[in-house]
């Protein structure tokens, strides 16, 4: 119930700013699709299909990550350090778990919308992924875990600038390296091993496998579940410690 109150507030603002949010989320995917799908990708064949079919699941993965991370991380960090609106929640008789869950679910909703935007654009550009329930389940899980990571970052970094730094050092490398634009196993072995541990690698892998009709890689789902549980747990612990 408390969790719903936190979520309700986020959705109130989300509804109000929906069109702005949507149009802003359109810009970078269109650029990615033009650059990598049409421009660079025209002459590349990967895994026996067109590069566009290869890259669309990757871009969906990276969008799900960045949108949900930023959707919780940036406003929460602002509300903790600048607007101080976080105090209202910290003083209120609301459990830390409910607070975190509400914020994370709200970030997940935004991430899902972000991912959906890419899917629709990808279809318009001519990609033909197979999209089913599991595809959305993996996207949901990805959004959830990165929204939780957003809470962790927002509650720990000491300034707005460090929030941007966190994004640059953690989110940006994953966006490029985790099997989004190319297969990670073509990289040197050490690098590939590191990348294999990162959550987004499993998102791209699972989404691509599902989109290509080769089924659901269960291990990837378990890895994502483990990350989601861990980040949620850490986020709750940090918020509890803050009050």
């Amino acid at each position: 119930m408390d969790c719903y109150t936190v979520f309700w507030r986020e959705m109130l603002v989300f509804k109000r700013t929906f069109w702005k949010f949507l149009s802003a989320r359109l810009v970078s995917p269109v650029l990615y699709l033009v650059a990598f799908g049409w421009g660079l990708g025209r002459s590349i064949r990967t895994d026996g299909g067109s590069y566009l079919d290869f890259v669309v699941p990757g871009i969906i993965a990276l969008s799900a990550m960045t949108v949900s991370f930023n959707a919780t991380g940036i406003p929460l960090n602002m509300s903790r350090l600048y607007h101080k609106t976080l105090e209202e929640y910290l003083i209120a008789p609301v459990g830390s778990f409910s607070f975190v869950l509400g914020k994370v679910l709200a970030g997940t909703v935004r991430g899902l919308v972000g991912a959906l935007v890419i899917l629709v654009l990808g279809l318009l550009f001519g990609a033909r992924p197979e999209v089913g329930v599991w595809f959305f389940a993996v996207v949901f899980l990805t959004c959830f875990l990165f929204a939780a990571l957003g809470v962790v970052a927002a509650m720990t970094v000491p300034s707005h600038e460090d929030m941007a730094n966190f994004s640059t050092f953690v989110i940006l490398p994953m966006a490029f390296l985790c099997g989004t634009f190319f297969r990670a196993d073509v990289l040197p072995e050490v690098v590939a091993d590191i990348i294999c541990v990162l959550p987004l690698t499993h998102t791209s892998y699972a989404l691509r496998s599902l989109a290509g009709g080769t089924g659901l890689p269960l291990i990837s789902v378990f890895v994502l579940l483990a990350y989601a549980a861990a980040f949620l747990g850490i986020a709750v612990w940090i918020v509890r410690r803050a009050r």
Partner: protein
Amino acid sequence: MIEIRGLTKDYGRIRAVDNLHLKIERGEIFGLLGPNGAGKTTTIRMLTMLTRPTAGEAYIAGYEVRRDLARVRGEIGVVPQHINLDQELTARENLELHGRLYKMPPAERRRRIEELLAFVELDGRADELVSTFSGGMKRRLMIARALMHRPRVLFLDEPTAGLDPQTRRRMWDLVRQMNRDGVTVLLTTHYIEEAEALCHRVGIMHQGRLIALGTPAELKERVGRYVVESLNGGQTAYTLFATREEALVFAGSLRDGVVIRETSLEDVFVQLTGRRVGD
């Protein structure tokens, strides 16, 4: 209603609040008066659980603040020094969010919102975004929000800082009115007039310590009810007397530029600390 026992807060090697003991009765308007950095805000933050005390304990409505956290939350309303309203929501939505966070039933929530919007005279702007409000309107909305769940104790941290004199007077009226409705008020201020005009009792804080406690009249009585201001080599000297007669005799012995007036809390502060509140 509030009982503070040995509350202490260290920030590294700096002691912000030093062994504070204080009892505030039900129905009181109590003011913590002191210059910036005296430890007033830290005290309020400890009482509202936003800062962990280094030592000591505090009871609100019989519950210890740290041990009975969950119970205390429902008993207190907090108006912080800075504006911490949700600027992306309207006035009504801010109150609605607060009501939901405090688990008020929908019907009561709606009734209370209308009541409070009228109380702080924001009913005409209820559905506008808070980001469009003036400073005074935001302050009033913060008061309404803090009262939303009918707390028995209200904390006001510098409620009128940065407000024009007219708006300040309206805030005072609001505080008096809610106090008449049974709310115990603990406020901090560095405005002497505010403490004099509003508070039943005043505690003067200086460098983290409570250095005087009493009604404004008692405190003035203690240092002398009349003050003679005289120019002494370019500096103003303040001499205090218990009676008007003594003050007159002293003033008569001086040459020119002499003012006799009644003591203010400012004089009390100067007498106790050797400084002015604004320093």
